[in-house]
């Protein structure tokens, strides 16, 4: 168990983490190059940049997005806030970073961290439940849409009990192993799954707008490719 944990938080962690970073960067680079490529070939090279940035920001900080399904919106927002803040600003995580790469930054107080961690787990479960409540969300939900929030809840729940030994029915090392390995699995999954929106979201509004910027002969080219230049309407 001891060695397994050593491995999990050592080489396996570093590999998974690097994999995530490189995977996400690859997606960002592809997306940015795609947009550049489109705009280079486009007949109309204007983009309403200001408007796109405003829309993007309104989704990154969705304070005004409570027009309908208030609980559902609130749940997802709390979920996002806590799963972003806790892993980055948790005291013991920052300590690990300091020890390994010598960098540190401000940390959360343990109470705040505890509350946010509990919120992360509760909202993850609440998302799954609400997906089954609304007919449309239920209809749209795929296996991964239930699995991913649940999988995300695992490192938070296990991390929480590991920090609170009195509440923990399992041995510390086993709990930590679950904590670290579930996080490692998530790191690997992130670039391949919808969670990659964590880095791609700032680009999606631009992609959607750029999709309407056609090359000046896009229709003709299709006609030629399909041998339909002479075909009547």
């Amino acid at each position, binding site marked *: 168990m001891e060695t397994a944990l050593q491995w999990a938080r050592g080489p396996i962690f570093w590999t998974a983490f690097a994999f995530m970073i490189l995977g996400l960067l690859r997606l960002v680079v592809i997306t940015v190059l795609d947009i550049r490529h489109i705009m280079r070939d486009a007949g109309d090279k204007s983009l309403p940049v200001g408007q796109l940035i405003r829309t993007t920001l309104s989704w990154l900080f969705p304070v005004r997005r409570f027009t309908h399904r208030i609980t559902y919106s609130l749940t997802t927002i709390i979920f996002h806030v806590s799963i972003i803040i806790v892993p980055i600003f948790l005291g013991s995580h920052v300590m690990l970073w300091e020890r390994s790469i010598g960098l540190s930054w401000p940390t959360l107080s343990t109470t705040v961290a505890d509350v946010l961690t509990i919120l992360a787990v509760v909202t993850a479960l609440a998302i799954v439940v609400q997906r089954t409540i609304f007919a449309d969300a239920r209809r749209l939900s795929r296996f991964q849409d239930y699995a991913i929030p649940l999988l995300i809840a695992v490192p938070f729940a296990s991390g929480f009990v590991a920090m609170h030994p009195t509440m923990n029915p399992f041995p510390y090392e086993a709990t930590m192993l679950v904590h670290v390995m579930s996080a490692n699995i998530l790191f690997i999954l992130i670039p391949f799954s*919808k969670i990659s929106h964590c880095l791609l979201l700032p680009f999606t509004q631009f992609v959607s707008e750029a999709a309407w910027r056609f090359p000046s002969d*896009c229709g*003709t080219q299709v006609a030629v*490719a399909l041998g339909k230049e002479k075909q009547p309407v």
Partner: protein
Amino acid sequence: MSTRDKYAYYIEERTLNVTERPRRFLEAFAAVLNSSSYGPALDTYTRLTTHCGRCAVSCQLYDVTRDPQDIPCERSEMLLKVYRRYFTRAGLFKARLFDDFTLTDEYLDQMADAYYRCTACRRCKLTCPIGIDHGLITHLGRYLLAEIEVIPKALVVATREQLEGVGNTSAIPAAALTDTCEFLEEELMDMYNLPAKYPIDVEDAEYVFFPAVSDFLLEANTLMGNAAVMHVTGGSWTIGTGNFDGINYGLFYSDRMLERIVKNIAGEVRRLKGKKVLVGECGHATRSAWFVPTFGGPDAPEVVNCMQYAYQQLKAGKLPLKDEKITERVTYHDPCNIARNGRITEEPRELLKAICSDFVEMTPNRTENYCCGGGGGTVSIDEIREFRTGPLGKRKADQIRATGAKYVVAPCANCKKQLREVCEDNDLPDVEVVGLHDLLLRVIDYTGFTEEKAETDTDAAEDLLKPVKEGVEA
């Protein structure tokens, strides 16, 4: 199978004769991906779509039908599924390992139904955290379906007339256009002693005018309003007999047609050595004309909507208005094609506030407006009227009812037709659907612009459309 049974809308006979549809569909898909800008959006959407369901409640159709097939994300997923399976590496790989989804005739039929239930109004895009543009997917889905000849008959027949027939979607010959303009001029004289002209084929004008050509048959007041505004503001404009139709159904079913029609518009402006495209009161004509920079070449003319022009003139103090305002309650319907992206929302409101004493907003409005229910060309399909004014139009009817307005101003040929039918079918008999220029015509102060009436015959109203109608029949 008859051409009306296959899909909810009428199709042409030839649609039924296309063979090997899945193969053709995929070939067209490949060709389109190669030469257009859809690919990155499809990649992003297939990667990120979170299937959260937020978009559902923002669609006026799903809101009424509660039919799962009308959930925006569900509809878009139909095409994304094909893309994922045939055009992404992961999809090809998965297909090799498992007995995965294959594109079938039946699946294509489902898409053909789904993509013409959506009006491509893009309202749902506003509520998607990922920014998925379902209007774009519907647009692309219809384009690909058109390549296997699935096109509503109403749209393809009109486009054929425009590109290969008389030259416009209403089949109005140039001679009939000239006659109609003369009649409209007489009418302006009769009503207001206003010697306004419709300058035909004048070279070097600043604006070349492209209304929805159907206005010449149906919206005489809007066109008279256009002429009145141009006259009192001293605008330099012309109508070209080579091409006087702003309608572009390519926007609704095929980028190939979109490109050809837009190029014809730019071509007519060049022929007349005009400077700008002036689009009449029409939402989709305006949005298509905004593709002039895309397809019109490096010296593409600028595009101005007539409401933008009128507002500029008002601001510059060049649009004289009578003191008496319109007192009946007026509300404004934002056509999706000009309002959704926020490009034209304030100009019409400023104009209306200047000429009406009781202007009220519908809620929601501007970028968040509800589609009239006839968007995306569905308004031209008379066979689906019940669907258009029922589930698709119900939200709009509710909105209009809530305002208690007498006049609904809808500066769009499509919206006008649809809203009139919506009001008829949803028990709103007292509401009148008009154009913005219809109202402007009534309130412009013509003092100083009038001329003594020459001898003209009265009752031109009936005669007004006669030459056009004869032209069409011929």
